[in-house]
């Protein structure tokens, strides 16, 4: 190595030689130095090592980039699942609307159906019969209606206070809802319950 030569200059020449960036004349000149100069040989080895390490480091950095690239891909899959779910819900809604429109599912926006009216009439008739039976002293409510241990309700009934029968029982409400297939159709019965 030329003692007047800057070490950085020397290393740079070694790198350019190793990288094939020297002209043929410059490469030949550098090789001539390699024949005699141990420091030139070691500089070349160092340049190659640096190149290898940098390449490996960049390769590692690329791997990290690849990993971070995978994450949005997974999110995309999740997005698709959500989209498919919403599409399924939307499709189901369309089918329900179509069934309602075709009359397969009974829905009468104008008022209760014949079956609802029949059920309501039967219940009204039953209440009237029970009331008559109570006036005649013939009414003994069965235990299954209130529960065997519910003495308080039985006592209330015996005392002639407001009877539980005055309220629409839950099974009745459920039956009407089932017939209507629509919660809104229960409104007339709610009013009826209010009237009682």
């Amino acid at each position, binding site marked *: 190595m030329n003692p007047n030569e800057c070490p950085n200059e020397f290393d740079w020449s070694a790198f350019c030689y190793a990288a094939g960036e020297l002209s043929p004349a410059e490469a030949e000149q550098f090789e001539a130095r390699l024949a005699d100069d*141990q420091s030139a040989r070691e500089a070349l080895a160092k340049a*190659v090592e640096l190149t290898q*390490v940098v390449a490996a480091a960049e390769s590692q950095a690329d791997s990290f980039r690849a990993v971070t690239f995978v994450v949005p891909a997974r999110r995309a899959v999740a997005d698709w699942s959500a989209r498919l779910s919403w599409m399924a819900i939307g499709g189901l809604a369309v089918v329900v609307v179509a069934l309602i429109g075709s009359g397969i599912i009974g829905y009468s926006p104008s008022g209760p159906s014949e079956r609802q009216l029949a059920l309501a009439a039967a219940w009204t008739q039953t209440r009237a019969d029970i009331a008559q039976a109570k006036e005649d002293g013939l009414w003994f409510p069965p235990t299954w209606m209130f529960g065997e241990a519910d003495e308080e309700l039985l006592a209330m009934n015996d005392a002639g206070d407001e009877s539980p029968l005055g309220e629409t029982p839950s099974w009745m409400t459920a039956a009407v809802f089932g017939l209507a297939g629509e919660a809104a159709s229960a409104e007339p019965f709610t009013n009826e319950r209010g009237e009682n």
Partner: protein
Amino acid sequence: MSSAEVPSTGSSHLDPSVVAALYVEHGEELRRFLLGILRDAQLTSDVLQATFVKLVQRGHQTRIESRKAWLFRVAYHEAMAYRRRQGVGDRVLRNVAWHSNATQGNGAAGSAEEPLLRLEAVQSVREALEHLPPEQRQVVRMRIYDEKTFATIAQELKIPLGTALGRMRAALIKLRVRLSNPDNNDERDKSHSDESE
């Protein structure tokens, strides 16, 4: 034990343990040196082997203190002779697969702890790369990882060739410092930060 401390046997051949010690001590550096000349991992391995064959045959004629230089000189002449025989000269020079050799260059011949040392060096240089100015790192990546020539880099980045060379050179100075001393801190980087273009 250093090769300089390993005595020769005085016979017509070097003691195998001496050869092995020299291989452990200088084999990897020799391999890189040869790779710089030959740019081919397989050729490099062949020439490295030929070099150590010569060491076995004639190493007893060398002085202990000059064996490293002797090995490099023999390797150089073997490499040049190989290139002439194979006719690979300039054809290989312009057809380099740099980092495909990088992983092969650290083969089984190295010492057992060498891969760990190299991993440390890679980690250290990777950190140094992250601290480079973006324009310098870009040139480093394009030259070493993407294997583009400086002329191509200058053309693609629309910068003068001298600017591309200057960025690479400034970056290499910083990276070399880090490679030489993986434990160094940023202060050593800063000492070279003014040497950029």
